[in-house]
């Protein structure tokens, strides 16, 4: 067997080289350039240490509200969104009438491109001809009509609703895990007199705990990458009320041509991502064996 070990690094080499070139090297460059004043206009590139980070946390009036938006969206997505998807999976694994139709139908919004979804909601929320205001008018609630995406009071929840309800990935993954649970375990629980609710909460839920943890990690990562939906609907406005960190990174690069500062924001995003991953893995005891 010993002589076969030589093939392991050879087969791993392409993936490793690709990773180093495509991810690791740019990542290092992001870290390094975040320590520089690196601007396109005026053309500047000089080492400034941690000044971009100091400016970000102490002098930038937009950063903390934007950080708050990002964290709130992560929290909402990791809780409400995952609970919704998991709850539906727990309903569907019992295979009620039409469960396959619901499973497939619920997945559809997740396979449509984010840009298309954003355009749909941009029109649904349109103040003049959007379906939301039209429905409100038709049922006599005209006083509730809003310019949903561009009123400071409604923009954040309006943008949140664009993705909050569509937990198709969570449902699909948790449902797949639930359906793979050995039927004999459920049978045994029934023989011991467990109710349906007790089976769900005390038998099935612990069995799919790791998968739920995985979907929570996916949800957090999704929120840390979210860009096109916000960019197309509100562009981050009004003000910065719907701006998240990825969008702020982009606008810093695009509007201020400040690449060093944008990369400092990128490092903060990576740090938040790393903290989220570790915390979620701890919370769901992802490294522990159940049996």
């Amino acid at each position, binding site marked *: 067997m010993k002589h076969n070990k030589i093939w392991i690094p050879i087969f791993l080499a392409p993936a490793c080289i690709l990773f180093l070139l495509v991810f690791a090297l740019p990542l290092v460059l992001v870290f390094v350039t975040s320590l520089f004043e690196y601007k396109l*206009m005026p053309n500047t590139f000089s080492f400034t240490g941690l000044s971009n980070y100091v400016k970000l946390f102490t002098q930038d009036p937009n950063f903390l509200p934007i950080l708050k938006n990002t964290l709130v969206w992560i929290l909402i997505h990791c809780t409400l969104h995952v609970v919704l998807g998991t709850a539906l999976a727990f309903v569907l694994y019992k295979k009620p009438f039409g469960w396959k139709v619901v499973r497939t139908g619920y997945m559809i919004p997740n396979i449509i491109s984010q840009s298309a979804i954003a355009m749909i909601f941009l029109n649904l929320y349109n103040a003049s001809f959007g379906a939301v205001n039209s429905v409100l008018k038709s049922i006599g609630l005209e006083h509730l009509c809003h310019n949903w995406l561009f009123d400071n009071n409604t923009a954040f929840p309006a943008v949140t609703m664009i993705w909050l309800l569509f937990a198709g990935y969570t449902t699909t993954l948790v449902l797949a895990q639930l359906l793979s649970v050995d039927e004999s375990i459920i049978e045994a629980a029934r023989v011991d007199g467990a109710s349906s609710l007790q089976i769900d909460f005390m038998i099935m839920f612990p069995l799919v705990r790791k998968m739920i943890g995985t979907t929570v990690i996916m949800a957090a990562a999704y929120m840390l990458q979210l860009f096109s939906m916000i960019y197309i609907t509100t562009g981050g*406005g009004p003000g910065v009320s719907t701006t998240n960190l990825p969008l702020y990174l982009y606008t810093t690069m695009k*509007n201020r041509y400040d690449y060093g500062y944008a990369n400092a924001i990128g490092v903060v995003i990576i740090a938040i991502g790393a903290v989220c991953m570790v915390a979620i893995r701890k919370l769901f005891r992802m490294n522990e064996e159940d049996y």
Partner: protein
Amino acid sequence: MKKILAAFLSATMLLGLLAGCGGGSASSGAASSSSGSGAAASSGSGKEIVINYPTFQVGVNTSAPVISALVEGFNEKYAGQYKIVVEEVPGDANYAEKIQVMISTGSLPPVVYGGGYKLLDLALAQDLVVDLTPYVEADPEWKAQYNDASMAANARDGKIYASSMEGSLVGYFYNKDLFAQAGIDAAPKTWDEFFADCDKLIAAGITPMAMDTADGAWCSQLMMGAMIATSGDEGLAFMNTKYPTDYNQDVVVKAVEKLQWLYQNCTTLDAVGGAYENAANNFYTENVAIIANGPWMIGDFSDTTLVEEGFNEKVGVAAYPGGFVYDEPIEGMFVTKQSDPALEEAAIAMVRYFTSDEAQEMALNMQGMVPASPTAEISDEALSTFPLLGDFLSQAAECELRSPTFTSNMVPGLESEWSNNLPNLATGNISAADLCQILSNFAASAQ
């Protein structure tokens, strides 16, 4: 056998990887003469030089027919010597972003259209632009195209870097039928009359203005900038200041207050958050009586895919109250530095051709685009095809107050900040003074 198979698979994977990394260089061998963008290709001395020209002026863009005709004409004139290959980049915002990214990597196509996107200054900051001054000086016809306004748009520190192909005389359009319904028989001459007319329109159940907040709020900022420019010497000086850093000036704050009033009382619900397209659509469908925009819109008034038959006869045009028009040649085309001098020469020939008086006259006749060049002739053909244009040009000739637009003078990037904060102004979440402070803060930090 297993070892041979494993070795073969490994070699294939590594070759695939290397081929993936190196494929670009193999295929772009012809493009090696450019400064690295691969945007242009010279196939060798004595052979046809290819100019790759990315542009958003394609498809349904108003200027698409003009650009198409110019490309065709250029390729015909320089057949066997130079050839333009158009790279379609639909959407001006996409185009501006693409060029910005190319500027950051230092590899630009040989010819870039600056437009209203401040691309020239950005490229200049990276020292990527060819100085056209010696070429312009050597060509009396070309030199005659540069008046003060054109120099302001295309020259920096006395050096000419770009050449405009269209001017930007901008007033506003109004719907004569809707004005008549409100009892208004002529375009207002003063701002007091203007606001009184707005009240009359509202009283008649007509929404006065087409407005927007997205993409720099083109229509809205035109109306507001005109208020600043006509407020007195201080206001006019502000409007003629390139990259102002202090927006906390009384004349600006007052104009922003009026803009807020217009958002809250005189426009459609979709104005807040809406882009130019929403505003234009509201004017085309006669939902509103007034839209501020340039003469390039005139062709659309007869396009029955956009408006009802006979709509063009309902539209009137006017200079802004107080005798003001925007007058700023749109930042023109510039040539970028290339490692192949022959490609640079080809690019200069292209810019010269596209911005010649003949080209500008053709654009006028085809689309009603106002020439940037003072030596280009306004033909009777153009005036008969676009009577509104003739009307506007005669009104504009009487206007002594002129300036660039409010947003075109902003420091790069500020337009987006302005746009994002307008919804808060419109809904009253921030005051005019707050918005001016936000603009000042950004402009100061961008210095």
